[in-house]
């Protein structure tokens, strides 16, 4: 995952990304980015300040291609077409929690 600074037109950070990454979204309230990966994770990144970013974790999910962030509730929505190989049509809703 590359962070590209629009003011300087430079890539300022490169972080590991799981396979099959597709849609990436940013939550400005939590200053976090989420990337949907078809390998079965939502990759979570944290902005510590505008010049410093870090990968938090690969959160395991089913195979996902896209996601959306509700910037008011900070909830994440990701549609799934299969669950452990069984066909489904379902929108999964996630919310941030404290990590211990």
């Amino acid at each position, binding site marked *: 995952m*590359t962070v*590209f600074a*629009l*003011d300087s*037109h430079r*890539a300022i950070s490169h972080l590991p990304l799981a396979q099959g990454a597709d*849609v990436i979204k940013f939550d400005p*309230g*939590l*200053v*976090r980015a989420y990337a949907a990966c078809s390998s079965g994770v*939502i990759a*979570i990144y*944290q*902005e*510590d300040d505008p010049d410093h970013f870090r990968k*938090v*974790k690969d*959160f395991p999910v089913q195979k996902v*291609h*896209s*996601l*959306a962030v*509700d910037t*008011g*509730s*900070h*909830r*994440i*929505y990701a*549609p*799934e*077409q*299969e669950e452990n190989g069984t*066909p*489904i*049509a*379902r*929108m*999964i*809703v*996630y*919310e*941030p*929690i*404290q*990590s211990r």
Partner: protein
Amino acid sequence: MSRRLRFIVGAAVLLASLRLPFCLQAQSLREVAAIDLPGPKGQRFDYLTRDDEDHYLLSAHLGPGLLYVIDVQTNKVIKTIPGVPGITGLECVPGMRKIYTSNWGEEKIGVVNLHSMSVIKRLPTAAKANGSVYAPPFRKVYVADTLGNAVAVVDVEKDEIVKTLKFNSEAGMPQYDSVARRIYVNLRVPMRWLKSIQRLTRSPESTRSGDASTTTAWPLIRNTIGPSSFAAGAGR
């Protein structure tokens, strides 16, 4: 402890308590709901977008060509809109209660009215309409036609394509920079070009070992398709 020191410590604790929940403590996710969608199971979904005014989540179900309207306050599907074949990208225009859909299956951009919850217009466009973005000051939606090597510029007042920008490469997902008032488009090299370049630039070592990952093609391609490959002034 002096009053001054107590004030400094107190301020530090207050600042930490305000900042910590957002940047340090909230570091994982948990599933809180699962919304069953009425379309056929096992078929591919694509982009999502939000309509913050109505508290809607809009979800493109590419396989069956359906657009779901979900109320995020109740987590209920309030409407399934048909007639958007091969829907990939979708973009909401705030204040107009309209959604612009990229209908790959019919090579058209659909205009969906959220009052009537139906498709009210279809705009023929170049091949594989895909990701899209809205630039509010210009009242225009920019739709990447990936296989048509183009970006269609849609005037949201007229619901017409007012300009088509052509490129010598496939057009990826566009983004709008509200500060610089520019649209950025990833121009990506078609796979057939990648294969040709890989063949031409494969090192003798990799050819012997059969390890394609050590060819010199990838640095070349990465330099070619960076995010700043193209920046066009929005509305032009």
